[in-house]
């Protein structure tokens, strides 16, 4: 059930009506849990057992963790949870990647091996719900939150359908209290929810899905196209993935809000960032915060005795981003994507420490000029990394970049008007609109006339320019 499908609209309308008819509390939460299971079943029947296993096992492990004060026992329980969660994630997502590389390494060493391949299915949303569950277990271990007292509430937290498939990665400390002190959606919540959903649908159907066919074509055979086509396609993919993923999370936030739950924002105008550190504060925010809190900061604490702070931070950033790349998918292209971001973050750290342009800061023209250069540089790094993110292989990415950088005239020029319009409109919005604005929140608070104009504009975009058949969301594969 895709968020943009008729069956989801019908399903969600039914869930909304029935849940509003139920008394907030027990019955409603059981109903939402059942609805979430039905939603997950529409994606995979056997994998429902796996997600329920994750929820139930972590619930009981944290229950025991909450009852004991003995450090050793708590550590063992944490270890059991980590092995369980990361073991399942590793097995289903990375087993074949590991086997392929092991086989290649053995062959390189002269030992004939393989090809080895396990016939596995990737359980939908496994990366997302594993991280949600891990954050809860770690928070309970570090006594940031108490262990959840209800297995139903915890199972609902893990499976809650609006955020299940591709986030936002909501923390237990953000969502569990909302289950426990259940509040009905107010009239304002309903309007904000509708507003989020409409904006998300426009991003997905009007922009992402319209450029997708051309992007797929060019990335499928980059050797056939000229340099300009490749540059435009790389920019087009940056727009596509932003609109696809932020569109999905907007719709997820909207659905949650309509049911009376508040999820954190996941994107805040990322392409207006003036450096890569700012980019990661605006792009997939819940994931970057997860990696910051549960990987980068523990690494920083563990290596705090390292005398070179710059080297330590840079190394920890690199490790964090390489693992972030691997989280996205079992492929070297994702590792390289993470490596580029790790290097860029370390480079930015070095730049801010060194601060070579400090003398120019008081010049009147400096902020404007440097702002433009910094934005272009940041966007350049992001677009470059996204070529690896999208390319089917490292070789294809190398061919793509080789031809794009030389702006070769050899090959077909495919200048799609859809991509030109999409790239132009999205980057213009990022350039002209203030970075911290959130139209989904602002629109419902405006007076009647601008509200009507805003909703009419969104509806008109959907009914005139909305794609005929919605493509699957890109992040569903992770």
């Amino acid at each position: 059930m895709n968020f943009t499908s008729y069956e989801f609209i019908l399903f969600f309308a039914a869930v909304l009506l029935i849940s509003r008819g139920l008394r907030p509390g027990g019955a409603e939460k059981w109903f939402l849990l059942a609805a979430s299971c039905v939603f997950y079943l529409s994606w995979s029947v056997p994998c429902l057992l796996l997600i329920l296993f994750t929820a139930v096992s972590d619930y009981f492990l944290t229950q025991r963790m909450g009852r004991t004060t003995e450090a050793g026992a708590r550590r063992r329980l944490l270890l059991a949870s980590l092995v369980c969660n990361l073991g399942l994630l590793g097995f289903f997502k990375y087993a074949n990647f590991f086997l392929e590389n092991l086989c290649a390494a053995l062959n390189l060493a002269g030992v004939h091996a393989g090809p080895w391949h396990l016939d596995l299915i990737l359980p939908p949303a496994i990366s997302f719900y594993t991280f949600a569950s891990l954050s809860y277990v770690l928070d309970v271990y570090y006594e940031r939150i108490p262990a959840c007292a209800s297995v139903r509430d915890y199972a609902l937290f893990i499976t809650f359908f609006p955020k299940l498939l591709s986030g936002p990665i909501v923390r237990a400390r953000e969502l569990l209290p909302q289950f426990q002190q259940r509040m009905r959606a107010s009239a304002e919540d309903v309007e904000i929810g509708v507003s989020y959903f409409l904006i998300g649908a426009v991003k997905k159907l009007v922009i992402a899905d319209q450029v997708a066919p051309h992007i797929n074509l060019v990335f499928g055979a980059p050797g056939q196209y000229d340099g300009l086509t490749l540059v435009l396609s790389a920019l087009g993919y940056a727009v596509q993935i932003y609109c696809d993923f932020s569109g999905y999370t907007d719709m997820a936030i909207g659905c949650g809000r309509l049911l009376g739950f508040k999820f954190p924002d996941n994107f805040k105008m990322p392409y207006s960032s003036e450096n890569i550190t700012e980019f990661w504060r605006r792009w997939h925010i819940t994931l970057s915060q997860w990696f910051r809190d549960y990987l980068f900061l523990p690494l920083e604490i563990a290596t705090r005795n390292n005398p070179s702070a710059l080297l330590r931070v840079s190394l920890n950033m690199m490790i964090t981003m390489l693992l972030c790349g691997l989280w996205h998918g079992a492929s070297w292209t994702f590792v390289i994507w993470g490596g580029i971001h790790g290097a860029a973050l370390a480079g930015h750290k070095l730049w801010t420490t060194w601060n070579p342009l400090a003398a120019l800061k008081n010049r009147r023209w400096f902020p404007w000029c440097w702002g433009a250069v910094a934005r272009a540089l940041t966007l350049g790094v992001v677009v470059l990394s996204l070529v690896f993110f999208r390319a089917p292989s490292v070789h294809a990415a190398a061919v793509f970049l080789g031809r794009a950088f030389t702006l070769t005239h050899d090959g077909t020029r495919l200048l799609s008007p859809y991509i030109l319009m999409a790239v132009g409109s999205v980057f213009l919005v990022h350039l002209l609109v203030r970075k911290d604005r959130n139209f989904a929140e602002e629109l419902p608070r405006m007076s009647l006339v601008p509200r009507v104009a805003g909703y009419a504009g969104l509806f008109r975009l959907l009914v005139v320019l909305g794609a005929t058949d919605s493509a699957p969301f890109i992040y569903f594969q992770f």
Partner: protein
Amino acid sequence: MSRSGRFLLALLVAVAIAAVGSHGVAAWLKVKTRAAEPFTLGQPGSNPPAFLAASSVGGYGILWDQIAGSLDAQIKTWGIAGGTPIEFEQFQKLVPDAKTTFIVVSTYDLDESLHCDFRAAIVPLGQTIAALKDEQADWNYAESVLSQYPLTWLRTLFPTLGRSRGLMGAARLRLQELVRKSAGATGGPVGPAIKFGKGAADDQYTEQRLSDWPPAEVLNKLVAMQVDFQGAHSFAGPKTRALERMLDYAHARGERAIVVVMPISGPYTREFVAPELARQFEATLARVQGHVPGTELVRLDLVPGLGVDEHFCDLVHMNVVGQKLATEALAAQLRAPAHQP
């Protein structure tokens, strides 16, 4: 007024504005919103009329007025953009006095992964559900077919809904036309439309040659087509079943049934008709011919030299030259002794 009331009011007014805008855009771009348009081709002759089931591939490919003349009978048909046997089956019974039935097929419009945009407006929902049950269709296919019904209902309010690619193409051509007009030139057609029996000499669109297209234009068209396909390409499914039912109906009434197979351009075939699929198409035609004894198969796709890119105005439609040659080939085959009733 309460907050909820104001929100509902805002939403209703917004929907109304969007609906008016959608109708305005549809009218400006001349979007085809009528599912089926009746046509009667040729002059009344001494023979009973014939029924024709053909999408734009058959409509563009053959000068049916001339065929009607050679049969000395009128040909009755309905123009359905992207029409397939599933839709034409609904109209067959509307020509009870027909003595000849022409059904035009190709590897393009008999492909099960391509749905007619007007199917839900023509085929009753109950009939579609029954057909999907009979076919034991998988959920993805059933979903893509059934989702056309709410789309059709919503199109009453928003006629442009789900037609964005066609709209953008039409808008581009419309703007080009306006530019030409402002420069004093006469405007051409804004794109392909089914014009049964009309001489094509005045039609700028059908005068172009696919072989003259730049490679990027061909790629753009292929991408646009790729988007229209839903699911795997196949020739064994509801369309073929509907074709067999139409032949059964014609046979039961003692009609002469002629299946005309049109050629499709090289780029389309190379991109979408893999050798295995081509074999499946041949097997389907053989089964269809064997299904109803006496079914005449006219293979224009096998006429030497006809299916070259010089004879197409786009990836699937023949141009004026191809149309003339295809019409002559069909007329000749109909005159051949094997095809005489």
